[in-house]
């Protein structure tokens, strides 16, 4: 399937990426080739085959619901690009 430049821009937008216009053509071509190759899957008969999302037989990993020490505030905020007192700072969201 041919993947258009517009499609790549649309999907990039869904993933919150803005693509560099200069490398757009190469990028769309490379992605197109990979998507074409993936199309090989359509030649496999999979009717009635259950999908696998987890390779090991494990279900319902329960644990006790107990109080535990977690990262303290100082550590939690230690890598924040911008912070104030006990908060992460983000750009204005409402009315911006």
């Amino acid at each position, binding site marked *: 399937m041919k993947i258009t430049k517009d499609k790549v821009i649309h999907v990039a937008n869904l993933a919150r*990426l803005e693509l560099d216009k200069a490398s757009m053509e190469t990028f769309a071509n490379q992605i197109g080739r990979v998507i074409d*190759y993936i199309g090989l899957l359509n030649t496999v008969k999979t009717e009635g085959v259950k999908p696998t999302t987890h390779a090991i037989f494990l279900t319902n990993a329960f644990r006790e619901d107990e109080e535990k020490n977690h990262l303290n505030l100082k550590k939690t905020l230690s890598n924040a690009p911008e912070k104030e007192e006990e908060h992460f700072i983000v750009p204005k969201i409402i009315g911006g």
Partner: protein
Amino acid sequence: MNLYELTMQQAHRLLSEKEVSSQELTAAVIDRIKTVDEKTNAYITVAEKTAMEEARLADKIISEGNTLPLTGIPIAIKDLICTEGIRTTCASKILENFIPPYDAAVIKKLKNEGAVIVGKVNMDEFAMGSSTEHSSMKLTHNPWDLERIPGGSSGGAAVAVAADMCLGSLGSDTGGSIRQPASHCGVVGMKPTYGRVSRFGLVAFASSLDQIGPLTKNVRDCAMLMKVISGYDPSDSTSVPKDVPDYTLLFQDGLKGITVGIPKEYQSTKGLNPEVSAAIKSAVRTIEAIGADCIEVSLPHVEYAVAAYYVIASSEASSNLARYDGVKYGFRDKGNGNLLGMYRSTRSKGFGTEVQRRIIIGTYCLSAGYYDAYYKKASQVRTLIMEDFSRAFKTCHVILSPVAPTPAFKIGEKYDDPLTMYLSDIFTLSANLAGIPGMSIPCGFSSEGLPIGLQIMGNHFNEEVMFKVAHNFEKATDFHIQKPVL
């Protein structure tokens, strides 16, 4: 013999007999890094100060007579395993200054043994790649030929072991990222069964495929590290509550009663280098000569593994990497000033091109209207691949194959051609899809003197039998003893 050349097992003996101190050993390793790493660029961060402090502590433990197998042993860590207080970059600009506030489960286990963390080693950004060329930090060179790639994504980890810049290392393997660089650098590398080792504190790429594992100078060292890092961890709900055997105690000689399977599909793989093919055939003959029976097995769906893998891994990656939004940690670029602009600008400037490519492929495969055609289809093919392996393991104990279709390729050779790069993982990624363990051990050299690895795959939680085959092969050969000259 220089101290940095020791295997973990040799070092453990000298340390417990107090012939050598961990401070001497660690200093020798750091000195070695300072001498040769300007050629290979394996390390992103050398944690000299904390390493020497850990060595001092280890010497104290040893003097008190409480030496454990890894006490005082200098280990290198792939730069996507969180180390408290030591920068963990994932070789990405987006985490360039990230200092984890906690240790990964495997790091805690190493520290509990008194191991020394020497530093953090290079990789493809977020482990996406097969050559370590997709690092935004530096370009790592193969010590056997500096013009070639070391393999990837755990390229730095493999180089650090091969060039004696640590005694052992931890990498991660999502589609071959431990085994392929181990093969290209002539060291031993193991991807354990999915769920054998806790992923807590491993920065996620594709959560249903990722697994941490060791890279070492020989098979016994690999077993030593496996014993320490394996086991159930309540912080990782996909880790499996199963006892961990002492792998090093299971090293019996001889392979009588062991059946090895050779997949017929792999013998006609397009692009399989004749020298690699010859080295694997010769390794199989050696293993037969030690007493194993050899049969042909069939894995009819492995030809679809690359396609299924790139759908599943990219889809999971696109979801996992959504967390990098410039808010809680890592790089931020304000962009046009509003929230969406900040997200877009942060992610576009913070992620490298390969990571962006995979996020777009993954988002495309998961997007409305395509989910059934790609993600669901790939997950069904994954089932068929798992069934192939479980059928094969009814007739054999281990499966042997090449690790990579060619020896290490030249830097730049596949950089602009993602699909060809992806196809170089053809022999390794089935094990990740099936969740089974796989390892690479040195089994030969090309005419240009480049290492070639043999892949041994086992059934779920059957690492013991793989170690048995690997140990016997290693005893009968000397490929693992040869070293690159730097």
